[in-house]
């Protein structure tokens, strides 16, 4: 039987192509504050990306032979992937530890994770001197198997596939393809386990990328424990982003969320804050241990030493205390403040390792150009646009149709 006809029949008899075309039409108001800000940035960003590929990376970026890693890698890739860690942590909690309380936010978190990896893989392509080599680890034109990047490349690809499989039941529900939904729902657990395993390795792998740059990264940030620190910090980075993004989605997509899930929101935020408090407590002590092990106390009384202390005390210890206190007092506003501080702290840490303390001793330091900043923002805004498009159409925040609950 013709597959299209079969799918159309599954979709309550409506033609799937007509349905898809109708879904492309915008929903809601066009001139919202977010749209007004993001559209010009995306358009300019697209123009700059064309310029980048036409004239070369030097035309838009301040990266050099001495500092080949710029804002796109340091911010979009290294930092962005840390924040996408919420997906693997939450899927572990829901599917492995069976913490059903967080089930209502699993789809939106996996969606965020998938879009993050997809867009930040794109941002990586932008920052490569020879972007056509991005496929080499996959197709074998010099695999580069001795590099950590080989692991990172394969993990990104496989993890995106795993996340797509985890999210695909939502797509099947949107399209009304019941048969596919049944099959995809059955694959969810395997994809989750695979995804968690991959995530833990490539989160630390992104840290391992810096291991070979011992002489280039400031001693306060360099250690052989960077991979472990990146892995542990990805846990509370991801969960803080879940709290932050969840609070915004809760307001923006309020009409989609069921009464039951609205009532559960504060309990979920509170639970996540407890995990963040515990993880940050361990992370702080890990950083202290590494600091003592590296015997770098003589560097504390320097400009970068003060910067290091600011990161540790202001953006690790302080939000950890805030999470602790706000969990005990059940203060949701304080939890959200702590989440924002944590997000800033993780951005600071990742930028410190990859950009700020990288070749800190050079006479001419790397400062990203305005064009790099615009492109970085354009990547993020584009991701949010796609996220919004999906949320407004697919059953991510709203409940699944009743027929889907039999398979879930």
């Amino acid at each position, binding site marked *: 039987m013709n597959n299209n006809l079969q799918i159309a029949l599954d979709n309550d008899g409506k033609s799937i192509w007509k349905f898809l075309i109708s879904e492309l039409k915008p929903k809601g108001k066009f001139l919202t504050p977010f749209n007004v800000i993001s559209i010009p940035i995306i358009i300019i960003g697209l123009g700059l990306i064309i310029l980048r590929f036409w004239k070369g990376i030097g035309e838009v970026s301040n990266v050099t032979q001495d500092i080949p890693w710029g804002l796109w890698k340091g911010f979009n890739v290294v930092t962005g992937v840390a924040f996408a860690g919420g997906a693997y942590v939450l899927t572990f909690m829901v599917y492995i530890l069976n913490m059903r309380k967080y089930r209502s936010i699993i789809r939106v978190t996996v969606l965020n994770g998938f879009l993050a990896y997809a867009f930040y893989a794109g941002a990586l392509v932008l920052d490569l001197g020879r972007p056509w080599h991005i496929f080499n680890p996959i197709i074998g034109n010099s695999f580069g198997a001795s590099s950590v990047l080989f692991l990172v490349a394969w993990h990104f690809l496989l993890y995106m596939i795993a996340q797509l499989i985890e999210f695909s039941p939502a797509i099947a529900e949107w399209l009304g393809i019941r048969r596919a939904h049944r099959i995809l729902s059955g694959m969810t657990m395997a994809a989750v386990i695979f995804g968690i395993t991959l995530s833990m390795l490539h989160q630390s792998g992104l840290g391992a990328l810096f291991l070979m740059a011992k002489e280039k990264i400031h001693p306060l940030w360099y250690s052989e424990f960077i991979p472990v620190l990146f892995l542990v910090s990805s846990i509370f980075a991801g969960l803080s982003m879940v709290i932050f993004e969840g609070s915004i989605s809760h307001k923006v997509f309020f009409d989609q969320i069921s009464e039951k899930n609205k009532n*559960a929101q504060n309990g979920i935020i509170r639970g996540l804050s407890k995990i963040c408090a515990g993880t940050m407590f361990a992370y702080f002590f890990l950083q202290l241990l590494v600091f003592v092990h590296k*015997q770098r106390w003589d560097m504390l009384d320097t400009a970068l030493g003060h910067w290091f202390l600011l990161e540790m005390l202001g953006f690790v210890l302080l939000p950890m205390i805030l999470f602790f206190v706000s969990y*005990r007092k059940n203060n949701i506003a304080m939890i959200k403040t702590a989440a924002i501080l944590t997000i800033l702290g993780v951005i600071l840490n990742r930028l410190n390792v990859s950009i700020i303390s990288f070749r800190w001793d050079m006479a001419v330091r790397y400062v990203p150009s305005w064009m790099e900043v615009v492109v970085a923002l354009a990547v993020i805004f584009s991701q949010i646009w796609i996220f919004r498009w999906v949320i407004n159409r697919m059953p991510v925040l709203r409940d699944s149709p009743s027929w889907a609950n039999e398979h879930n």
Partner: protein
Amino acid sequence: MDVFSYSDIFATKGIEYLIIITFLALLVPFWLLLNRQVRISSQVNKALGYLSANILRIPHGLFYSKNHTWMYMEKSGAAKVGLDDLLLHITGEVKFSNLISPGEFIRKGDLMTQIVQKGKVIRIFSPLSGKILAINHTLNERPGTPNDDPYGKGWIYKIKPLNWVEEVKKCYFAEEATNWSAKEIERFKDFMALSMKNCSFEPSVVVMQDGGELCDHSLSEMPGEIWKDFDTDFLNSN
């Protein structure tokens, strides 16, 4: 050319061990302190005889119906039902009458029992449809049992359910049940304020003036009219 540098990794071993021991030593009180909030305030409220969300026992593995009954499916396929902690905190010690005999069938919404205190009655409707397998005979032999152990020894019936999946869908579960119970206490406060006004009773008997806290077993001091109102307007209004 790379500069060779040597650092003695054993120089700080002692401090590192101390840091690890400190971390482990601090971890236990950290975790206990983090979780202690609920226990302290619940004990304070218990000591003062206040009814608040913190002192309620709401196991997360049970389903809670809107009329404050709970249901739990055992491995044998029989479901236990009983009254939840909030209802028993409100009423105080009660006796059970009009119990249905084993072997009989009951539908969801049918009268399954009445709880009685000094002649005042509240109807309890069944949250489940099914066949009654057993009644808990200790309920009237030891009337305080449901108050002491509402989810264990305080069960009322064992029922073989006919439509478990459909009928639990409208029930509260886990964190949702906790949030709902907190809201029910507020709703009960409003109910008491309105009932007291209608009956022209002194509000200070039930609601403490300072902070508006409810006393435990608030309903036990109330007359039969308030029990009737509680039955029709609060418990079984849905």
